[in-house]
């Protein structure tokens, strides 16, 4: 019995980690390559979730909904890159934090103006609504398994794109010396816009997939954004591999903590104390993890090689 519960929670943790990874991958690319701190990345996640939910409710096709979310959000991302971020690349991180903070206020309100203040209802598509037996006697929702599957494929694809293709090589070269790459005749401005669009699409995919699990509402990306930052800081800024490992780690630690700390504490405290301390410690767990990692490895688990 206990094995079933633990297995289920570990899978939930991995699934949450995958959602986080899709957010963090775009964030770490934008951060690592363009040296831009983008707080509005959570807004792109939110926009993706909203477009997907609204499209699904209109046309009842899940794949079409995902596609609309990817294209629509990438378009929004490209617009804000051209209009706002191009004048921020050369500024210090503080300016970037503040400008993108302004964007968050705008997008949270814009979403409320377009879709109303109440949460939008997002459904699991029919063909993924069942359960799958992952281990003998352990049924698990097919939809969550599908998220894990999609996430793994996307993770592999991004890794290959960045590490094994010519475009990926240019992206990495741009991260180490923007001027030199531009001098070699590469249109670095266009490359940055493309990377930003890719990051936006990844955030949208994360939001669209997470919609049926979480609530689709204004501000839904704000807290997840902080978790994604925790992930890329633990993983090492700019590292795709680090982001993946850290995302799964954070997802599993957070989920396991929330599920089991309260009963664990109840073994040696009064029920009342455990009811208070359990959730409190569980919600702080990943930040403790991050502080510990930074204490011992100030540049994360996979720091970028020194130039």
């Amino acid at each position: 019995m206990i094995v079933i519960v633990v297995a289920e929670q570990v899978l939930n943790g991995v699934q949450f980690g995958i959602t986080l990874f899709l957010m963090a991958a775009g964030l770490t690319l934008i951060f690592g390559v363009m040296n831009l701190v983008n707080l509005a990345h959570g807004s792109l996640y939110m926009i993706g979730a909203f477009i997907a939910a609204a499209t699904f409710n209109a046309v009842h096709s899940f794949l079409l909904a995902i596609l609309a979310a990817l294209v629509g959000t990438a378009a929004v991302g490209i617009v804000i890159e051209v209009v706002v971020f191009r004048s921020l690349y050369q500024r210090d991180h503080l300016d970037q934090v503040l400008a993108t903070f302004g964007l968050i206020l705008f997008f949270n309100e814009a979403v409320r103006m377009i879709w109303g203040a109440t949460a939008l209802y997002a459904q699991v598509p029919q063909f993924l609504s069942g359960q799958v037996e992952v281990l003998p006697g352990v049924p698990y929702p097919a939809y969550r398994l599908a998220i894990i599957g999609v996430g793994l494929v996307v993770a592999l694809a991004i890794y290959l794109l960045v590490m094994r293709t010519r475009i990926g090589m240019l992206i990495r070269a741009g991260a180490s010396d923007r001027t030199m790459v531009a001098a070699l005749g590469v249109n670095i401005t266009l490359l940055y816009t493309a990377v930003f669009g890719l990051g936006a699409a990844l955030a949208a995919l994360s939001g669209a997939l997470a919609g049926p699990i979480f609530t689709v509402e204004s501000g839904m990306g704000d807290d997840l954004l902080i978790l994604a930052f925790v992930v890329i800081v633990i993983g090492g800024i700019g590292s795709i591999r680090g982001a993946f490992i850290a995302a799964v780690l954070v997802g599993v630690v957070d989920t396991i903590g929330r599920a089991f700390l309260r009963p664990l504490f109840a073994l040696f405290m009064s029920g009342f104390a455990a009811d208070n301390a359990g959730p409190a410690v569980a919600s702080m767990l990943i930040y403790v993890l991050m502080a510990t990692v930074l204490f011992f490895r100030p540049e994360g688990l996979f720091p970028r090689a020194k130039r």
Partner: protein
Amino acid sequence: MTAPRIRLVVTLAVLAGLALLPPVSAALGQDFYVDLFTRIMIFAIAAVSLDLILGFGGMVSFGHAAYLGIGSYAVGILAYYHIDNGYLQFGTAIAASALIALFIGWVSLRTSGVYFIMITLAFGQMIYFLGESVNQFGGDNGLNIERHSDFAAFLSLDRPVTLYYFVFAWLALCLGLGWRLVESRFGMVIRGAKSNETRMVALGFHTFRYKLVAFVIAGAMAGVAGALLANLTLFLSPSIMHWTRSGEIMMMVILGGMGTLIGPVLGAIAYLVLENALSGFTEHWQAILGPFLVLVVIFSKTGLLGAAGAWRTKSTHA
């Protein structure tokens, strides 16, 4: 006039204006402004405290709202156990926020740059979630505070005007303290570490200690703002510790002009008056405020105070 002279004149003018606000608004029959400006001055204290480390010390702390929360919770939790003594409540608020700032600073100051932003943000969120999950004190629903801090008979914070001048006195005190601090030898070391830390270390200064002390002072000051806020709203809510609140305080600093003491005060006035005016105008005020902030960041480097200075220079040269 030289820049420091301008700042002094602006500071005195702002303080005089704030001192005269209650009788003027009473004469106009607009008591509402007393409440609004009490709130503004509280956030001004928080913004000044952040500017001490951000503007003068170059430490971009993104978790400053945490200390606001700790100050609030110190007052609220003591009041919950019917300990209403104001000296005790404010003493606890200051001590608790200083102590937690000491720990957070001790860990965070080992990192720098963007890692420092992120780790202070993470600590802020940690304390936010702590407040949200402890159901004993209201959890995420918050908790009503039944009485104001009790400073014996001669100072009753129940009257809005008394509370206003109480907050005003704290603001003046914090500005005075901040001024003494940044002009002192200690302040010079902090500012030196901002412009070139390696050089300061080479000169033999243990910059880590200086920065940590500044971090603790800023935390304690924000704790006072939190204790005052609890007295204004008589309500305890984890939402005052959310990271977006830290962003707002930072916004006030930038809007007013960082690296000056009166700048954050102007920024708090501008931000909250703007928020208040826009929210009276449309319920979607954030859709206007957001792009406005983006424009401020893109087009200005020095905030309101710098803009005023630039305008003055231009007009005298014309």
